[in-house]
């Protein structure tokens, strides 16, 4: 639950839970959603009352439910993070090729992922540091960003050492090119637009100057006319 500190040391912006809750606000009722590991997983806890989302986990389950009660789990009912989960009424199990047909075929409405870097054109780096001694491992990340209709990234605005994660060009190996639609950080909600980063909403107590100071590329101000909601309603595309 780290918060960004202002120059006076004051804690600023959203907590991890608040970031997840802010993401949840933007997900329309009836969406089919894949949540990545970390903060993205928290999103499911903050879905506003009255909305029903269906969670996909790429290892082969649509209709994923929460963790099982202690002692009630099945080591073969797990999510993509290899943690035990449950299945809701209306769930279905399928093999990997069908699961990624859902992903690659554009059937999922939304994927929420973590990031190491996001570029101003929407490139995402979230799978490898590129270091020589790093064991490369990609899992389904590249498939998700290539196939899911909308990609939300949720991440701290800067690294632990204060480097911006929103950058002109990613320096880490890419997961996908021009794939991110919107970024939720502890400081702001920012859209990727044809003109680059554009502020949608600052966190309480955060202003554009601070966001700009902590971002590695230009940030346009909030659009004068409120932008059309990124996903106004669930698309009827199957």
């Amino acid at each position, binding site marked *: 639950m780290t918060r960004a500190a202002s120059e006076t040391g004051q804690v600023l912006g959203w907590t991890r839970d608040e970031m997840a809750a802010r993401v949840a606000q933007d997900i329309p009722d009836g969406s089919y959603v894949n949540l990545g590991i970390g903060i993205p997983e928290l999103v499911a806890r903050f879905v506003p009352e009255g909305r*029903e989302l*269906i969670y996909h986990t790429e290892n082969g389950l649509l*209709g994923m439910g929460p963790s099982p009660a202690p002692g009630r789990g099945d080591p073969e009912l797990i999510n993509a993070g290899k943690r035990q989960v449950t299945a809701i*009424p*209306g769930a*279905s*199990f*399928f093999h990997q*090729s069908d699961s990624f047909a859902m992903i*690659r075929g554009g059937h999922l409405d939304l994927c929420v992922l973590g990031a190491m870097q996001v570029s101003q054109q929407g490139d995402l780096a979230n799978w490898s540091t590129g270091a020589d001694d790093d064991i490369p491992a990609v899992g389904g990340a590249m498939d998700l960003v290539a196939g899911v209709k909308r990609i939300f990234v949720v991440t701290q605005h800067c690294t632990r050492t204060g480097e911006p994660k929103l950058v002109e060009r990613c320096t880490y190996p890419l997961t996908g090119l021009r794939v991110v639609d919107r970024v939720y950080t502890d400081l702001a909600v920012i859209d990727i637009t044809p003109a680059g980063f554009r502020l949608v909403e600052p966190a309480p107590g955060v202003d554009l100057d601070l966001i700009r100071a902590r971002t590695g590329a230009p940030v346009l101000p909030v659009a004068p006319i409120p932008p059309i909601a990124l996903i106004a309603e669930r698309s009827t595309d199957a």
Partner: protein
Amino acid sequence: MIDKRVASPAAAVADIHDGATVMIGGFGEAGSPIELIHALIDQEARDLTVISNNCGSGEVGLAALLKARRVAKMICSFPRTANSTVFPGLYRSGYTRLELVPQGTLAERIRAGGAGIPAFYTPTAVGTPLGEGKEHRRFGDREYLMEHGLTADFALIKARRADSHGNLVYNRTARNFGPLMAMAGRITIVQASDVVPPGDIDPEAVVTPGIFVDRVVHVPSPAHESELVAAGASYP
């Protein structure tokens, strides 16, 4: 709250537009969504491209849609039927064009379309008239040709049972193209003999997960095409 149920076949197909590409499930009468097809006839959309394995029999269902002159083009593997002259007449007159595709290639093209795969290679039809003009390529010691994925604006399919999330199971060999077309249709419309609440279909036995389905219509006692044909029925 997710509830994909729609009140009637008419409501389910209301927005199919002139010029739309429509996949229609079924192999012969098995899996043919007759009630949805009849609603489409009533609805009067025309200039359709229809993707379906056959061209129907008698003067009901798919054959009736053709007879009503709503189909500009058929993409199918086997348009001949012992007991229907509807398609042959339209084909010979030049009214309805035909793209003939081997059955396995048709199935795989539909799956590819639904799975986000724009093209793949297959050995089927190499050296035959249906392979002519297609891009050929050698892999290992064998020749293949390239085929493209197929998608559609709408898919009309028939299931034995659906839940309100759109999870489906089928009846025996009526399964055929249903699960593939459900994936490849931008709007997938299902008629099901049985409609149940979520949880009533074993999650291990779901054939089509609900994510592929947009609308579910309850048609409790679907007609059998062969019985309609035997009775000399025609639609409308």
